[in-house]
């Protein structure tokens, strides 16, 4: 039974970086913008949070710094893709390449630095309760933050007027403009929010999940987060489902090795990527579902008047 609780904890932890990044990108795409720079922003968040944590001794300060750094990068994307009307796909790719290069460059001196990091919480008495104790109260604090984020994003989109406006902008920016909403400002806000969330995802990796810095440590999670948003047909609860499913695939990799299954580690490591491809193929096949749920203006350059 304790093993079950352990699985729950590990699965949620493994899925948390995806939760942060994918929820952020969901909001961005709901406004009609496609930002492929998630991988770059996550790495920027990771290295910044690590450096700040190492220099100040406060991991939480590092987390905040990571979110800000990623948001700053997303601002570059916003200026080029929104204000200067560049192709969103190319600009997002540029952002990823830039973020990967920047994080590798800045992080070189920190490759073998050790920091304390943020550990899973442990409340004496409660955490020791059989099964439930660990499964509900034994997670890393940032995991709880990510769940709170999900609740906030869902409520925002479907219960608030601002969320309605965001959805309208993503559906038909020209109509929103004609009614008088500031489409550009709304999209900028969405992009910055998405950047901050990607930064949180990266920070979680560097400061909580495996407190360390390794070049390219996100290992493609940013791209998987993008696929997750499609898989979720742009619904927050499905993002959570997908993220934790991926968490479990990642876990399966380690469990198989621990169980002594004689498959080379590299082949097991392929599982998350192959799973992403499979999931994308299955969900994209239903063109109608995609057409109805995808924000109609996604990826299209918006020309105000």
């Amino acid at each position, binding site marked *: 039974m304790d093993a079950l609780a352990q699985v729950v904890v590990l699965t949620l932890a493994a899925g948390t970086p995806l939760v942060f990044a994918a929820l952020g990108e969901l909001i961005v795409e709901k406004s009609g913008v496609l930002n492929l720079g998630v991988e770059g922003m996550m790495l920027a968040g990771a290295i910044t949070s690590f450096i700040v944590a190492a220099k100040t001794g406060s991991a939480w300060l590092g987390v905040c710094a990571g979110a800000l750094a990623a948001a700053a990068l997303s601002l570059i994307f916003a200026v080029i893709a929104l204000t200067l009307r560049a192709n969103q796909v190319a600009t997002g790719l540029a952002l990823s390449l830039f973020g990967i290069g920047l994080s590798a460059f800045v992080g070189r001196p920190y490759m073998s630095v050790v920091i304390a990091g943020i550990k899973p919480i442990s409340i004496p008495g409660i955490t020791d309760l059989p099964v439930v104790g660990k499964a509900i109260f034994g997670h890393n604090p940032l995991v709880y933050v990510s769940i709170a984020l999900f609740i906030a994003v869902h409520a925002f989109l479907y219960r608030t007027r601002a969320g*309605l*406006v965001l959805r*309208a902008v993503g559906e*038909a920016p*020209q109509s929103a403009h004609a*009614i008088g909403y500031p489409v550009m400002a709304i999209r900028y806000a969405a992009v910055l929010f998405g950047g901050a969330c990607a930064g949180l995802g990266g920070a979680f990796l560097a400061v909580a999940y495996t407190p360390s810095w390794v070049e390219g440590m996100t290992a493609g999670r940013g791209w998987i987060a993008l696929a997750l948003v499609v898989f979720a047909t742009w619904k927050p609860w499905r993002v959570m489902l997908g993220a934790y499913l991926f968490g479990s695939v990642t876990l399966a990799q380690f469990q198989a090795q621990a169980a002594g299954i004689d498959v080379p580690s590299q082949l097991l490591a392929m599982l998350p990527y192959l799973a992403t491809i499979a999931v994308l193929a299955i969900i994209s096949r239903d063109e*109608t579902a995609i057409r109805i749920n995808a924000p109609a203006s996604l990826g299209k350059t918006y020309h105000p*008047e």
Partner: protein
Amino acid sequence: MADSSPAGSAVTAAAVPRLALRGITRRYPGVLANDHVDLDVLPGEIHAVLGENGAGKSTLMKVIYGIVKPDAGTMRWEGAPVRIGSPARARKLGIGMVFQHFSLFETLTVADNIRLALDAASAPGLPQRIRDVSARYGLTLDPARHVHTMSVGERQRVEIVRCLLQSPRLLIMDEPTSVLTPQAVLRLFDTLRTLAREGCSILYISHKLDEIRALCQRATVLRAGRVTGECDPRQETSASLARMMIGGELPHPVHREAHAGAPALTVDSLDVRADDPFGTTLRSISLEVHAGEIVGIAGVSGNGQKELLAALSGERRVARADAIVLCGTPAGTLDAFARRRLGLAFIPEERLGRGAVPEMSLADNALLTARGAALVSHGFIRAKAVRAYAAQTIAAFGVRASGPDAAARSLSGGNLQKYIVGREIGHHPKVLIAAQPTWGVDVGASVQIRQALIDLRDRGVAVLVISEELDELIEICDRLAVIAQGRLSPAKPVRETSAEEIGLLMAGAVPTSDRVVA
């Protein structure tokens, strides 16, 4: 809705104009859209702004509604000078606008759509208020319905109710009847007259002379950005209005007697399922177009025209090869390129993006549909021959462009349409299909295009025209059919039918049921 003017005598010379424009000027690259325009709208008046496509009407309305800022000029609202910097400001003053191309959000409900246009403060009790207003003005609406399930006519009602809920003092209607059946037009006029009686001023933008004469009390005529006349349309004839609108007589294409030959295009019980969730399914469509005749298909947009055109042109292949027969060959399963080789030519509804690639030159665009032996040899493009073909087309149809290397998007709507028409006709087709051939095109080019279609018919080509402009169809077609909800009525000779009958067919011939009446 109430205003202080007494009902019936709202239009008196002594009243202060609700809206007064002086010297409004707005320039776009290469064109002066509004040139020192003056306009007065009195309280409770239905005022027409008349002009052909490209005259500057839409720009003027955007200026009034705050979407666009004028380069020069002043505006006065009920006597006081104002600057309208945004649609929100316009709405606060009491100006409402019903757009020609609706600004609705398809995946949201009617209530949510309207909510977005109103201030947050007016949110409570919205669904009930929608029901009240729509009942009062005869514009039935269900607040919980999603917009994408609604017909075009119903969507227009949402636009209008959205404006009415803000108690406008001035309502701008931009080409409202292009999406309505003749009966629905009459109902709309009743609504507008009720509003005017209550003191609301109405600015009615249109190029349809008969409607303006039936509805409006005053008219301002625009031509090439300038005001060329002001009048009471009730005292004018269509001819005199046309003279003010285009500076000359409204030209009519020259007709000769039709001599229909063998069927060149046969459609037999065509069934096409809509793959777009927002589309229309075609049911059992049957039609015959003979060589040397022009057959027209009338209908309000959204009743299956898009799907029918895609099936006929080959952009969408159908299951049964003999559902569509081109010049004797079953063509249902052939793609667009193969059908062209059989002698089909097609002028699509969208010029930029479908009929032509905007960023490519006119020469390259000629290659789009003319990839036959003369222009391509062993797979390689014969650049000189392609440019010559483009130059020929430009000359033959009087297209105003700097040459075959001009980018398609640099041409005006009318000129690009002329080029596309010329390019298609230049293939010497046996069957020509034209969708909305003169939409958004100035009068001069319109007449030229219609004449070209008639000349083509006289040369023995089978022509099929699908259009939402009933007047145009009645003018050039020999036989006419109506498409409604994916079904096609039998084609009757134009002389044996009437606008009233066609209107009924457009509405699905069940005028009392609310669902079908558009």
